[in-house]
């Protein structure tokens, strides 16, 4: 996968149009899931995915094949998602530590528990446990300090455990 990605990135860098589609197919699934844990609605995720790939396309000739393109892509996407949250849910964006929207039908206890987390905590949780991303990469993507990321993870775990154990 890594070798394939590196080859594709090199082709994208050299200006091969079809290679960009291949890069999309190699990276979109992980990106989609990451964004979903953050935004929790498919419509918002699709909007952000489009915006993120457009931005990536605009800088495709500057991509360095040794650079971690997936991390770079997710960094772009997280920034886009933050802006989207701020625009569409200004109140939630401002006090996102405490307030969580219930805009989507909750299916299952885990989903409910995730929805009770703040978007930022949820994102860190999704990146760490869902995508197996290292703390350092999460810090790069979110621009947050290591201590903050760890606190978010700890808080998210406690909250999930609470909901799963006690249903509240």
């Amino acid at each position: 996968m890594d070798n394939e990605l590196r080859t594709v990135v090199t082709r994208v860098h050299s200006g091969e149009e079809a290679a960009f589609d291949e890069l999309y197919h190699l990276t979109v699934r992980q990106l989609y899931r990451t964004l979903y844990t953050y935004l929790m609605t498919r419509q918002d995720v699709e909007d952000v995915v489009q915006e993120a790939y457009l931005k990536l396309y605009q800088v495709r000739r500057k991509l360095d094949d040794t650079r971690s393109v997936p991390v770079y892509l997710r960094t772009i996407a997280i920034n886009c998602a933050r802006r989207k949250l701020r625009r569409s849910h200004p109140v939630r964006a401002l006090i996102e530590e405490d307030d969580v929207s219930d805009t989507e039908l909750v299916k299952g206890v885990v989903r409910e528990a995730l929805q009770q987390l703040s978007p930022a905590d949820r994102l860190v949780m999704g990146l760490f446990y869902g995508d197996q991303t290292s703390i350092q990469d999460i810090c790069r993507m979110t621009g947050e300090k290591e201590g903050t990321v760890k606190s978010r993870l700890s808080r998210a775990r406690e909250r999930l455990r609470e909901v799963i154990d006690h249903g509240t």
Partner: protein
Amino acid sequence: MEHNDREYTDMLNNELKDIEPGAGLHNKVRAGIAANAVHMRRRNTALGAVVIAVVLTMGLSAVTPVFGRNGTLPQVITAMAAERQAKKMSKTLGTAPIQQTGTALQTSVTTVQAVNDSTLSETDGVLALVIANKSGTPVADVLKLRTDGLGWGRIMAQLNVSGRDIGKAMSQVKAAAKTKGQGENPKPAVSNTDGTKIVVNGEITGVSTTIITVDGKSFVIGAATQLKYQGKPITTAEITAKLLTGKLYATVQGTKQADTTLLANLIIVQDEATSEQATPSNEQTNPSNEQTNPSNEQAAVSNDQQVRGKVTVVTATVLHVDGFANDIILNADTKVEQVGAGRMNIAAIKVGQTVQVHVILSGTTYTAQQVHIEDK
């Protein structure tokens, strides 16, 4: 913190297992990229059009006064540069930049006063003085062009003054200001710096035994005040009598007193306004109260003598030179010549110029036979 907390990983993976990008998302991404490409093409086209329009406008404006009274683009640019220099100079000079500029450029106090009396800002005033000085044009003409609404660039082009001329003049002013700051000014200021001396040209609008009003300024006539008419003493009663028959004009050289009143030292009464009286208010000030000129050689036994010094007052008929206490009469027989310019007329004599005058004493009247202007 490790990823061995499988419970959470499994929990999340289980929850997100159905979360997959839709089949149409790739098409949407591609459509977004295509739309952006079109948008960028349009933006670049519009940008190109704007650039072409700007280039064409600039090309056109270089030869056509597209900026109206501000002139062509080069003239506008020149004006901006000149104004920037003048502004900087005003800031550097600090207090009274117009006076300091006049001093540095050896401009007559009348000229400086004309600029001061105009509605121009200090920056514009400095520029007006410099342009007048460099073009050899009376400042009144420069002020008129400006009040007519012409931009400085256009005025400079009209008077054949380049940006380089302005730069040189500014350097001259700067150097003079620096020298003055060191107390080593080799050329004493023509215009005022201490503000105690004042010279006013204008119509006499009132006179009594103790007060004379010229051009709206009232001067106290003291015991030491000299009143002259055609080189001879005149009394206030005679002036009053003459005023009954028509207008009278005067050049008054006075001193500001501590109580802000003006004491007249010398009043030269004339039948006609001098050319400098065309300016609404010709209040002039002179930095030096000292009227000494050791170089003036007055031949005690001869009727001929040479007087050398700076012109403190000049009218069409009377000349006053710093250090020489008497009126020097100018008449049609007076030859005037200037270094580098040759034969001139009396109008070429300006306040502040250094002159050497060949004077003939006849009775009590000193008449200038020849005036040699040493300033170019």
